[in-house]
């Protein structure tokens, strides 16, 4: 067992130690239901109305969902996952609500508790369903609203509740705070990395994640090596370094905003022009695509994934990569929120090819790639562990059929989930990071 797998297992054990929070007292069932409904209503706009009115209940979205495909459980069909939202729309907002209401059941507390399983344990928000719908319905955005409704009712899985509260109140996740970052950086700098902390006058700030700091600090060192090589004037801030956003994951929009605001305010205060997000899918999404909408204003800086930085630096001639010597082949695991929901599809492949890797694509890849099974907090949930291992197995078979020497990804959560899954089935194909691979091939 290699060291990164050992650390992944240690993190899994640490997550298991998190005491479940009992559902918050003081909220009656009626209040929870009302909160969920209000959260639904806040997000139901004309676009969602068109989506809900267009769905013909063909059920094709099920055939895209890795959770349905691996279990054949019809309740995991994406269209079923947003059923509560449809009900509320038909009772409260539809132009035909006066007709629909008597025939449409109201949402109950039992519904919210039942749907919690569907939208947290059996959905990573991977958005594969968005790509299959023949009517063009943005299915995952509807399911997302259900997650937020359940979050508003404070009925999210207890472990996520604890974690998002910790991030909201203490600016740390599983104990990973500014001091933890300082210690990791000190160790990395001792090993030769040059990571500037809390530097004044920087125009670029780098974000990392709890997963990277606990499991893959080498990826942080790789980010630093790349940014230093291309001459970026960059830093990390000990009070605003976390790209992971547990508010987003838990469906708590207030906690989502708190975590986003920390980064935005810090960047504004320091005059930051560019925020670079390390290897994380949801961290990239919550800032790059949701950040401005969360804050209600355009962000005062540009947001790039480290992959975009590498690709641009290569194109500009600021970064040269050496050809790998041993003719290895790789399969690239597309992190859903970087690729299908983020638009970063070609860059990682170009980068890998530039280093001389033969890319062996899985049967479905890129825009239609399967989720690793652990995205959007899924890998934190004990209740979802059986399901995510089934999805991992689907993914593993895809990799095995492709027959590459190693699997490369660009998301610490994907990497963690793949490592844990591989360990459980004793699958020994190396699982590595794209940014670390780049750092290892940088010309002197």
């Amino acid at each position: 067992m290699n060291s990164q797998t050992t650390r992944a297992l240690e993190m899994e054990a640490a997550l298991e130690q998190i005491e479940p929070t009992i559902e918050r007292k003081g909220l009656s069932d009626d209040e929870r239901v009302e909160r969920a409904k209000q959260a639904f209503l806040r997000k139901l706009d004309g676009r969602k109305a068109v989506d809900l009115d267009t769905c013909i209940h063909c059920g094709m979205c099920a055939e895209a969902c890795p959770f349905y495909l691996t279990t054949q459980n019809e309740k995991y069909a994406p269209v079923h996952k947003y059923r509560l939202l449809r009900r509320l729309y038909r009772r409260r907002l539809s132009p035909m609500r006066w007709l629909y209401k008597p025939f449409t059941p109201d949402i109950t507390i039992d519904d919210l508790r039942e749907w919690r399983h569907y939208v947290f344990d059996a959905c990573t928000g991977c958005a594969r369903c968005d790509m299959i719908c023949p009517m063009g319905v943005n299915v995952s955005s509807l399911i997302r609203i259900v997650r937020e409704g359940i979050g508003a009712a404070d009925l999210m899985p207890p472990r996520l509740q604890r974690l998002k509260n910790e991030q909201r109140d203490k600016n740390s996740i599983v104990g990973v705070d500014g001091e933890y970052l300082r210690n990791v950086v000190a160790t990395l700098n001792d090993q030769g990395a040059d990571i500037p902390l809390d530097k004044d006058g920087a125009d670029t700030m780098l974000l990392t994640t709890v997963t990277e700091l606990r499991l893959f600090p080498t990826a942080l060192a790789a980010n630093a090596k790349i940014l230093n090589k291309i001459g970026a004037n960059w830093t990390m801030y000990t009070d605003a370094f976390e790209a992971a956003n547990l508010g987003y994951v838990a469906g708590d929009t207030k906690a989502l905003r708190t975590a986003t605001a920390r980064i935005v305010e810090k960047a504004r205060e320091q005059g930051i022009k560019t925020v670079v997000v390390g290897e994380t899918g949801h961290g990239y999404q919550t800032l790059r695509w949701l950040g401005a909408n969360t804050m209600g204003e355009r962000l005062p800086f540009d947001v790039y994934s480290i992959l975009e930085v590498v690709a641009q630096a290569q194109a500009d001639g600021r970064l040269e990569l050496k050809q790998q010597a041993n003719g290895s082949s790789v399969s690239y695991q597309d992190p859903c929120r970087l690729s299908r929901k983020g638009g970063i599809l070609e860059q990682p492949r170009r980068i890998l090819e530039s280093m001389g890797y033969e890319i062996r694509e899985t049967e479905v890849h890129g825009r239609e790639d399967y989720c690793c099974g652990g995205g959007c907090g899924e890998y934190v949930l004990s209740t979802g562990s059986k399901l995510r291992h089934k999805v991992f197995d689907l993914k593993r078979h895809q990799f095995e059929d492709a027959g590459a020497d190693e699997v490369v990804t660009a998301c610490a959560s994907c990497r963690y989930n793949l490592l844990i899954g591989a360990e459980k089935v004793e699958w020994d194909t190396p699982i590595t990071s794209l940014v670390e691979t780049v750092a290892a091939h940088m010309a002197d």
Partner: protein
Amino acid sequence: MENMTLLDFARGPGLQWALWIFCLGVVWRIVGAMYLLGNKDLSKARRTNYIRSGLRAILTRSTPAEAFEEKIRFQHISGYAWHLALFVSVLFFAPHILFFESILGFSWPHLPNTIILFSGAVATALLIALLIRRATHPVQRLISTADDYISIAVVLLPLITGLAAFAHIGLRYETMLALHLLSVELMLIWYPFSKLMHAFMTFPARYQTGTFFGHRGIKA
């Protein structure tokens, strides 16, 4: 005389009322949905050619991506076959064209009756097959509502009564014709309240999803 009265009603006020309800209902439903508006996406676009992204999605969603094709082949093919057979039966049957001409003021060539009979039979058989699938496939059975079943029924009725009138099966011709017209009127009245509205909503839905993903640089 009684049958003629029924036919007169079906051809006259019945049709007029059905068309009014259809038109007003459709407009009400579309305007009502659009009235909710949408929140502007404040994130910096990766691609700003929204019209192209939207139109692309309208086109590309007409066929499934290669990665999905095998899994949804039956629904994909049967869906196309059903709509095609329906449109051929509705739009290219000589008496239908005369009817449309009386409303629109212009006409177009018709197809031979044997082709119309065949397409009508195919449409009916396919719709029954899709109904059986809906009632038996675990996912579709779970997600189906009364709207799904009623909509199939009100579309089946004009097909069955039309075929019966055409083939002189069952009641006398004038009665079957009146029932055929009344069943069409029932469908028109049901239309704006039901999933049949998807005919008007599909392209806008595809367009907006195309622009949503296009904003992020993804061809959806």
